[in-house]
């Protein structure tokens, strides 16, 4: 590959523009490219061993001003007591969070702890703060870093060794991935959401379909999405195996960012805007791979198996494993039979939250269903806003009251039941409809059985007690 050598006339994709603008040392036969990182997001789970490497080698953070830290995975979704006691699930979780506080203090990293009004899930707060911007390279020790691509940033998850690399050098060693256009034509029908769109894509190309590639979501349906919805789409790029997913910035993006705390302002804003407007893929630029998706034909989607590619329209019947032992095993784990409908299937817990679907738009959608309805008897519904800011906004709009009056639990920001590290989890064998991103075996607690779906489907399921197509309920 020949980066840095493209002539100005050669049309480039959004990805190529961002990549080429961050190459510190080009890729060669001997080494991957050295890529500069503009924003490094840090949380408690994937950073402690990296800080230890720095300490052991006597290194400092090269650019602490380009790092932001939050705590989200091991933190409780129950409130801190008036006396200041934080109800951690166990001593390990508490120690992990304490370690983050200690590390951030020692190395000079800005940390939004649980007492901060800016605390929340790492992929919710970056955009909220305006730290996530078009054209930036953004990394985090978390695979759902792809979320930030919704702004036209190149954003991807890294392992802990690489967390250490960025801390020490503000750079990463990377081979240039291939590009993959995801063309989504038409418009989503009423009651069909961004979550259904991305589940539809993963179902179509499979969970390894994007391996080695960076997606660019394009087309009328994508342009029509708001930022919260675009984040839902980009968030699950990794679930199709892609390193990252990007959406070209446009007026929707700029309107979201304008006035945010860490976004440029004044003359800096005008200068930034001029750069951002040059980012979208040039006409005539080509992609290494391409897929077309018809938005209008999409239905609300739901997963039936143990990975996000095992997905189908909510009214469909569970497909036959066709001799695949793994698919057969997945259905066995889920306690499902080929040919059965999921509509009407009993569910124990509904979880609305996670970096996929915990933003204000998601909560507004859920509230349209919960309004003047009750959570079904015997059903537990957990609603976990993605950040303090989302929580405050939801409460200002009275959404929390709708949830509480319906009988749902309104919690504090956390990754919560998406990854089940903080005590929010299913019991073995229990079923959840969850707005999160992974339905792997045991993901929501040992023996847990997860159906991934949109906030609308989750809320409709909560009020009926069984898997429900939200379009059947009036007023949605």
């Amino acid at each position, binding site marked *: 590959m020949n980066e840095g050598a493209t002539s100005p006339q050669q049309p480039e994709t959004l990805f190529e523009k961002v990549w080429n603008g961050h190459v510190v040392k080009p890729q060669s036969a001997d080494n*991957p490219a050295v890529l500069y990182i503009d924003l490094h997001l840090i949380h408690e789970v994937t950073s402690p*061993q990296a800080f230890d490497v720095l300490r052991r080698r006597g290194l400092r953070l090269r650019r602490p001003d380009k790092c932001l830290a939050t705590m989200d995975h091991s933190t409780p979704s129950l409130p801190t007591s008036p006396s200041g006691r934080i109800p951690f699930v166990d001593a390990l979780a508490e120690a992990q969070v304490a370690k983050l506080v200690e590390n951030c203090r020692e190395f000079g990293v800005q940390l939004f702890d649980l007492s901060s009004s800016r605390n929340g899930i790492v992929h919710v707060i970056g955009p909220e703060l305006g730290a996530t911007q078009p054209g930036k390279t953004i990394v985090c020790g978390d695979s759902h870093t792809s979320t930030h691509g919704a702004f036209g940033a190149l954003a991807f998850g890294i*392992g802990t060794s690489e967390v250490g690399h960025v801390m020490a050098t503000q750079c990463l060693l990377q081979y240039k991935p291939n590009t993959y256009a995801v063309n989504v034509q038409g418009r989503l029908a009423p009651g069909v959401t961004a979550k259904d769109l991305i589940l539809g894509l993963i179902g179509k190309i499979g969970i390894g379909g994007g391996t080695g590639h960076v997606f660019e979501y394009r087309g009328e349906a994508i342009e029509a999405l708001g930022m919260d919805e675009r984040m839902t789409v980009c968030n699950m790029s990794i679930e199709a195996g892609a390193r990252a997913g990007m959406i070209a910035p446009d007026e929707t993006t700029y309107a979201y960012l304008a006035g945010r705390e860490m976004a440029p302002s004044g003359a800096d804003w005008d200068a930034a805007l001029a750069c951002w407007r040059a980012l979208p893929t040039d006409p005539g630029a080509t992609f290494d791979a391409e897929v077309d998706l018809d938005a209008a034909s999409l239905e609300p989607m739901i997963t039936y198996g143990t990975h996000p590619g095992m997905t189908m329209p909510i009214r469909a019947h569970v497909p036959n494993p066709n001799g695949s032992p793994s698919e057969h095993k997945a259905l066995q784990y889920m306690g499902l039979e080929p040919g059965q409908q999921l509509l009407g299937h009993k569910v124990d817990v509904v979880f609305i939250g996670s970096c996929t679907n915990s933003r204000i738009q998601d909560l507004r959608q859920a509230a349209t269903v919960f309004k003047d309805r009750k959570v079904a008897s015997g059903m537990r519904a957990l609603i976990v806003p993605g950040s303090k800011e989302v929580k405050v906004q939801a409460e200002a709009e009275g959404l929390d009251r709708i949830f509480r009056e319906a009988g749902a639990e309104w919690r504090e920001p956390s990754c919560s039941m998406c*990854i089940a590290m903080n005590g929010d989890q299913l019991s073995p064998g229990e079923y959840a409809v969850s707005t999160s991103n992974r339905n792997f*075996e045991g993901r929501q607690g040992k023996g847990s059985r997860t159906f991934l779906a949109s906030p609308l489907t989750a809320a409709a399921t909560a009020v009926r007690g069984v898997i429900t197509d939200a379009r059947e309920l009036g007023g949605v």
Partner: protein
Amino acid sequence: MEVFTKIESKTVVLPQTNIDTDQIIPARFLKVTDKSGLGENAFADWRYDATGGSNLDFPLNQPQFSDAQVLVAGDNFGCGSSREHAPWALLGCGLRAVISTRIADIFRSNALKNGLLPVVVPPAFHQKLLGTPGAAIMIDLTSQTLTTAVDGTSESFEIDGFARYCMLNGLDHLEFLLQQGALIQSYEEAHS
């Protein structure tokens, strides 16, 4: 990083497709701030029963595979999260290489930084390995070949030159980046 040149070992086979990082090391074991306990909890939900006892149907619990250094896994290994705890857990139970037909990007990247060799093989060769658990295999990183004792056949495999050099010499990737200080400095000056 430990030097990796050549290993000769028997294989242990997990034929399931799409083995994700939540299976390799469930999230509840990620609360450690070091690498403790990861090896014994690799594949915890498959390896141990509800009471914490060893599930004897699970290959890694069977004595004949206890010294296997090479894991042969079903298609598309390592999808899911970016947790480096996954390769740490596999190394912690004595594995040095993973063979599949497709290996997820972040897992592969993490594995290479820890001396765990990810090897992608064609479907036919993969089928042969899946069908012969415990067979001896030789993986030679210098020549980028693996040879199975089942029928003596060999297959070559791809690995990027940089990762290969680092593994052969036991060098860590951070060292290379630290040597780029001047270039990084110029980049920062040009982009401030």
